[in-house]
């Protein structure tokens, strides 16, 4: 078997170098289609957040555990979120990358965690008026064949961050996870 990871970590440099050489920096950094509002919102989230994650399923007891999420900026384009917690004595970690993609003209993200093999490829938009980021993706779900719709709503109100995760669509949609966190002030 191969040890592929390091090479993959560099794969996109070719595209990056090419893009950086060909396109003016101003073109790369700003757009006129809500890009700036979205990136401003993304960067407003940068910081350390402490709170709780609640997991629920219909007919089952809800569960709650404490989490800490550190959101960092990568240049002015992307943010990474590293969430850690201990769930019933088991360590839990999640990693999220979010940014506005000029090719897709959308808010995009990648999400993975230490418990699930699935890599979520998210796409959505930031509603600047409502101050809510909507993301959607497809993933397997219990008791269902094939991928099913998932979505999230992320709200930033001052020093409070709330994220809700939903599974299914239409009348079958259920709320599965809620994260509520406060910005840590040193």
């Amino acid at each position, binding site marked *: 078997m191969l040890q592929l990871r390091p090479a993959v*970590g560099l794969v996109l*440099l070719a595209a*990056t170098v090419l893009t950086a050489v060909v396109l003016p920096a101003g073109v790369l950094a700003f*757009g006129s289609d809500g890009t700036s509002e979205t990136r401003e919102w993304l960067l407003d989230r940068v910081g350390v957040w402490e709170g709780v994650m609640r997991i629920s399923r219909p007919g089952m007891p809800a569960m709650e555990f404490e989490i800490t999420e550190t959101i960092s900026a990568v240049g002015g384009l992307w943010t990474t979120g590293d969430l850690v917690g201990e769930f019933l004595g088991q360590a839990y970690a999640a990693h999220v*990358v979010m940014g506005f993609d000029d090719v897709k003209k959308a808010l995009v993200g990648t999400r993975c965690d230490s418990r699930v093999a699935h890599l979520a490829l998210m796409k959505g938009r930031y509603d600047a008026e409502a101050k809510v980021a909507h993301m959607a993706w497809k993933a397997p779900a219990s008791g269902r064949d094939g991928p099913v719709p998932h979505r999230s709503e992320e709200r930033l109100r001052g020093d409070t961050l709330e994220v809700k995760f939903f599974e299914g669509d239409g009348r079958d949609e259920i709320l599965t996870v809620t994260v509520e966190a406060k910005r840590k002030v040193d």
Partner: protein
Amino acid sequence: MFDARTITALVLVAFGGAVAASSLSPATFQHGASQESDTEDAFQRPAPEHVEMLKAVGEWEGLLTWSFPGMPSGESRATETIRALGPYHTVASFQSQFGGAPYEGLGVMSFDPATGELMNTWSDSMTPATLLMRGTLDDESRVGRLSWVARGPDGALVPHRNVTTHGKDAYESIFYMGEGADEVEVMTISMKRVK
């Protein structure tokens, strides 16, 4: 009392993972999962590809050289730190410089047991677009091949690919842009493990 299996099931259902329906019954949540199924095992037990991915965890450094048609060639030193996120994913942080400006790249590598594909997403501090690469591994030749679509010189989306040859603690990766007779080699990366 919940056991590790049940905890996994909870998180799986919460974030869109896959798990056998039998392990998600109310009884399971109340008493802990006890049933096993091939489906559940297939998703929860790390695949050989996951194990191989995690062998890359550590610190790397090396040199990348590029030569795009009609443009000056160049080179830059680079470092990369790779960490594990559980048994299924790795997260990479890559640093270098272009034109005197700092460059930081972010990669998430995963293996999809359902499709048998390696998946890697990449975002960086200079590019306002994220890329998704899909690839395969050749166990015997120790060569990895990945392909993706990205902007070309005229801004249009064109196919890209790379071929990576691995040694024990070093690798070389060659990048190509375009397809067929129009394909050109645009970059080479040579890295060695530091830790």
